[in-house]
C-alpha cells in the first residue's frame, strides 16, 4: 500500500505536466493541475500515511 501511495503521488505530479505540454487551454491546465495536487495529497496523506499508522508503535 505504501508503494501504491507513492505511485499515486508520482502520477499526480507527472500527468499535469504532460497535459500542460499538450494543451494551450488555461482552464484545462488549471483544472488538471489542481486535480493532480489532489491526487498527490490522497496518495501521501491517505494511502501512504494510513499504511504507516497501521504499524505505529502506539498500536502495538
Amino acid at each position, binding site marked *: 500500500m505504501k508503494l501504491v501511495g*507513492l505511485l499515486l*503521488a*508520482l502520477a*499526480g*505530479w*507527472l500527468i*499535469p*505536466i504532460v497535459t*500542460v*505540454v*499538450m494543451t*494551450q487551454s*488555461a482552464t484545462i*491546465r*488549471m483544472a488538471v*493541475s*489542481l486535480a*493532480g*495536487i489532489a491526487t*498527490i*495529497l490522497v496518495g*501521501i*496523506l491517505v494511502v*501512504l*500515511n494510513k499504511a*504507516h*499508522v497501521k504499524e*505505529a*508503535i*502506539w*498500536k*502495538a
Partner: protein
Amino acid sequence: MKRIGEAMKRCSWLGVVVVLLSVISTRAQTASPASGTPTAPPASAPAMTAPLDVKAAQPPSADDLAKGDPSGTRTGTIADVVVSDTNKGLTLADTVNQVGQNRIAINFVWTLIAGFLVMFMQAGFAAVETGLCRAKNANHTMMMNFMVYGFGLFAFWVCGFALQMGGCAPAGTLGGASPLNSEHSISLLGKTWGIFGTHGFFLSGVTYDVGVMVMFLFQMVFMDTALTIVTGAAAERWKYAAFAISSVFMGAITYPLFANWAWGGGWLSQLGVNFGLGHGYADFAGSGVVHAVGGITALAVSMIIGPRIGKYNRNGTPNAMPGHDIMIVLIGCFILAFGWFGFNPGSTLAASGNGALRIGSIAVNTMLAGCTGSFGALLYMWLKFGKPDASMTGNGLLAGLVAITAPSGFVNTVSSAIIGLVAGVLVCYSVEFVERVLKVDDPVGAISVHGANGIWGVISVGLFADGTSNYGGSWNGVGGSVRGLFYGDASQLIAQLIGVGTLLGGIFCLSYAVNFVIHMVVGQRVSAADELEGLDIPEMGALCYPEFVLKPESIPASVTASKPAEIKAPLRVAQETA
C-alpha cells in the same frame, strides 16, 4: 584660505564632470545631427586611453593626508581611482572601469552580508527546536542543528552547488559568474528541459572565480536552512548517524535538484519561455525551494520514523509533550526574524542596478508578514483555547515569514499583511491536522510551519504578484514583471501549481525513497530504551544540563498496557531509580 581651497576643489570636480559631459554630448551630436542646420565639425573626443588631467581635480597632497581627515572630505578622491598603466596615468577608461567595479563591489558586499545573516539563522533554528524538545534530548537536538551546517556545507561543496547552479547562466549583478554555463538538459516533446548543472564540483577549475564564490556562499546558507528544518520534525528519536547520512544526501542531491529546476535555469523556471505559463515558476527567495522542500522531507522522515513513545494513546488521541524552555524558543524566533532580512532582501543579489533598490520594499514586506503571522496565530489560540500560546505565536511569526519568502519581491505591503495573516491561522490548523488527523508526530511543528506555509507562499505568488517589480526588465527569460491572478495573469498561478505538484509529488517521493533505504540499511530510529532515557547520554555521551535532576518520564497507562516488553522494561528501571 581653507574656504578658497574647498571652493577650488569643488570647481575642479565640476570641471571633470563638464569634460565628461561634453565628451558624451559630443558623441551624441555626432550620432544625430540637427536637421537643416549646418553643424560644426565634431570636436575630437578624447580616446579612452588618453590620460585625464588629474591635477585639475586637485587631489589632496601627501602633506594634507598626513594631517588626518576628521571630516572625510579629503578621503575618497580621484587619486583613489585604480590606474591600469602608471606610465600613462589616469585615463577615461580607468574611470569608467572603476564605475563598473564599484557597482559589482556594492552587489558583492550586499550579497555576502545577507548570506552572513542567513547563516546566523542556524542559531535561531537550533534555539527554537531545542527549546521545544524535552530537556533530556537537548544536547542531541542542539548537536543536530550544529552539525547540519558542516554536513550540508561539505555536501554542497562536493557536488550540490554544481548540480544546482552549474548551468544557471551568467549572473549580471555579480560580475557575470560566467563559468556557471553547463546545464544537462533533455529534449522532450519538442522542448528543452534543464535537469541539473555540471560545472562547479569542488568549486575548482573554471569555477574558481570571485563571482562564483559569492554565489556559492549565498546559495549554501539557503540550502542549510532546508536541511535544518528536518531535524526538528524528527527530534527526540532520530539516530545521529541516520541524521548525518540523510542530511548529506539532501544537501548533495535532493535540495540542489529542485533548486536547479527553480533557480538554476532548469525546466520549472522555463515554463514561461517554453509553454507560456507566466514567467515560469517564480520563487523569489525560497518558500518552495527552501521551506517546502524542508517541510516535505520532514513529513517523509516523520512518517518513516514514527511518533515518539507516549505521544499517542492506544485509542489514537495525542498527548501533549511540552518543550523545556519557552524563553529560548522565542529568542530563537527573533534571531530567525533578524536573519530573514538577509534571506529575502538578499535574494536580489544586488543593491545597485537591475531594480535592486526594491530591497527596502522587500524588507518591509518581510517584517509585515511576520507581524501579521504572529497576530493570526495569537488570536486563533486565544479565541479557541482561552490563552495566547507562546510556542504557537512563535510558530505564527515563522509561518508568516515562510509564506512571504516567495512573493516578497513581487507584492505590495497590503498583500504581504494578508499573506502573513493567513499563514498564522493556517499553521494552527495544520499543526492540529498533522497531529490529530494524520497522527504524525512533529515536536516543533516543522511540517506545518515550513511545509504547509511554504506551499502557501508559492501559491500566493500566483495570486498577489502585482507587476510593479522590475529586475532588469524580465524574469526567467520572459519580459515584463511577474503578475498574479488578482492582477490579470492566471497562467502565473498555473506555473506555481506545477511547482507545488513537483514539490509534493516529485520531491516527497525522492525524499521518502532515500530515507526508506537509510531506514532499511542503518535504521532511522533509536531503541525504545534510549528514547525513554533521553538521547543525550546514549547518542551524545553527555547531558545538556548535567546539574539538573530530570523528572522521571511518566507514560500514560493506556500506552504501556500491552506489549512490547522493551517499552515496559526501561520504565521499571526508571521508576526504580527515581
